[in-house]
């Protein structure tokens, strides 16, 4: 029986023990088995229980995605693995810091577009801005694309954090 070969992107949340080497385990699993990582975000989320939450965006055929989840779940310090993409509606957010250098019309236009995208100015000099923009990856990408023509000099992105809609917790 052959499985469908179409590749799709999945957002996976993983709850893990916050212990040394856990990130290496997860990343090593992906590199060792040849899976993609499109985005990876990790930070402690429960200091009392010593838990961290890892959000991974990965792409693969349905069979590969199933493998990735099973392989993650098999790691001893992993508590939970959830595929947000298939388990009902969810929301994703990313944050970017965007440094734009320039004067005159370009500077004014950058500020105007930042307003449209509800990006905040978090640093300003007479010839530069640093914007903070939050939203879906698509929104962040679009904003960054616009800034490219207006003096973009530096970019930092957090990668995606995501969560299911509604009252249920991971």
């Amino acid at each position: 029986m052959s499985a469908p070969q179409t590749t799709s992107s999945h957002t996976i949340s993983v709850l893990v023990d916050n212990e040394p080497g856990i990130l290496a385990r997860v990343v090593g699993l992906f590199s060792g088995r040849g899976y993609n990582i499109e985005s990876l975000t990790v930070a402690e989320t429960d200091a009392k229980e010593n838990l961290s939450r890892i959000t991974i965006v990965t792409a693969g055929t349905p069979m590969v995605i199933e493998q990735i989840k099973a392989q993650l779940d098999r790691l001893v310090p992993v508590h939970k693995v959830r595929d947000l993409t298939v388990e009902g509606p969810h929301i994703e957010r990313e944050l970017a810091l965007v440094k734009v250098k320039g004067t005159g019309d370009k500077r004014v236009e950058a500020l105007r577009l930042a307003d449209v995208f509800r990006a905040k100015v978090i640093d300003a000099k007479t010839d530069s801005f640093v914007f903070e923009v939050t939203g879906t990856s698509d929104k962040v990408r679009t904003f960054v694309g616009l800034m490219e023509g207006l003096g973009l000099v530096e970019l930092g992105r957090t990668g995606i954090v995501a969560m299911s809609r509604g009252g249920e917790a991971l």
Partner: protein
Amino acid sequence: MKPEESATTGADLLVKALIDEEVEVVFGYPGGAVLPIYDSLFKQNRLRHILVRHEQAAVHAAEGYARSTGKVGVVLVTSGPGATNAVTGLTDALMDSVPIICLTGQVPTHLIGNDAFQEADTTGITRPCTKHNYLVKAVGDLARTVHEAFYVARSGRPGPVVIDLPKDVLMNKHDYTAPKKPVQHKSYRPQVKPELKKVEEAIELIGSAKRPVFYAGGGIVNAGPKASKLLTQFVHMTGYPITNTLMGLGTFPASDKQFLGMLGMHGTYEANLAMYHCDVMINIGARFDDRITGKLTEFSPKSKKIHVDIDPSSINKNVRVDLPIVGDAGHVLEDMIRVWKARQPKVDHKALKAWWAEIDKWRSRNCLAYKQDKETIKPQYALERLYHHIKNRDHYITTEVGQHQMWAAQFLKFEQPNRWMTSGGLGTMGYGFPSAMGVQIAHPDALVIDVAGEASIMMNIQELSTVAQYRLPVKIFILNNQYMGMVRQWQELLHGGRYSESYMESLPDFVKLAEAFGAVGLRCHDPAKLDDTIKQMIDIKKPVVVDVLVDKAENCFPMIPSGAAHYDMLLGPDDRAAKPVSEEGMVLV
């Protein structure tokens, strides 16, 4: 922490923890970082330490011990090179799901990361080749970590676990904590019991099959001897044919008429064709390895597949199955038998009879046939004679890797589990001899034979010194064809007979070599004298190296060339011109 008097050093605490985990034997090699542990071992007599001659051999010995007893094998090595030498053994144990605890020394915590003498990033290096690993940073965590490690190593799909022990942790003092039973790990909880609904669905499918086949693997061995009994019982209840993987040999009695032999690349014609033509496949504890499936797109295209595995990541990894069941093979078989008895499915006996008739037709091809002459010993003949002389004795077989391993799998018959130790997943040359030492330690009175090739045996030959020291009467049965036989066979089949670097130049005189280590050496090249040599080997109550000079050009058949489908088997030397290997297949190993 309580007052000094009641507290023990980390090393003493470790030994205590091992004893509480019912460890009897540790295979190891000392060094600077583990001196405190060796000092603790010196001061007690509950734990026996077996001094190997290379750390790789320590892990293989522990594997042999574990696979032949069902217990956890324990290894103790020093930091740096001690740990890196153990890596091959750990990877081997991971691939074949063998429960191992490997204790590695480490430089003191304040030196970690400083490129100290004999420092290696052991947890970093062993992360991908262990089921789990730990670096113990405080003596207070030591006992708990050891108990947790044993739980992880032996439960679920078993595997190797490394505990890295900095020297200061071994010397600091702390109170001991005994293991808590039953263990409740905060995140690791393998699913042992299957969903009953799935078992019921499986029975329905199995009961309605017209051309069924059981395909059972190493998972049955790991589920304990009871699982093999249940498997045998269930297969007998159904009357269906069964084939075993290399790792599963012995889980169903080889002499039973329902047994089709091993399947896969060098499996029997009947087993592979049954897999190809079946309509219901019942995989219990096997993982659709590429040596089994051959060309994936043509793997058993007409069958509904049931897959029982304790590891969810084995399911739908290589082959998409119709009915996955996660659980321990023993539990699943128990449930299957119960449901089968309760439901009494109406088996289509007419269809089953026709299926067996077809299988018997394939069997009559006699795919393992070979021609023995008066001049040179055929390796297959040597193994047939070996089996003849050992079959009524309490025996255990280990192998190295290559042609001899496949012939051993084909020609030695296994009637019960835990009797066959071989490196299946990783294919580690040098596995068999140290593994046999571990088996012999666990079963001092049994006949333990390492079926070897002359190339593989050289990879851990230093262990002759270990068997001499502990008077282990291990037998090394070398099928000596003066080539890395499997490499030579592939070069003949795939690379125009250009035998690049596969000839074993300058081999030692194995008889003299054995004698140099205080073992007995025997040699045989005459088919007429083979029986006497084997009898002699069995009768000598010392380690024996038998150098059997066999046909140099013999190839291992049947063979499914890599990238080919099950029906594309080469049955013998005359078969191969008709079926050239595709370029696609040549890329595969």
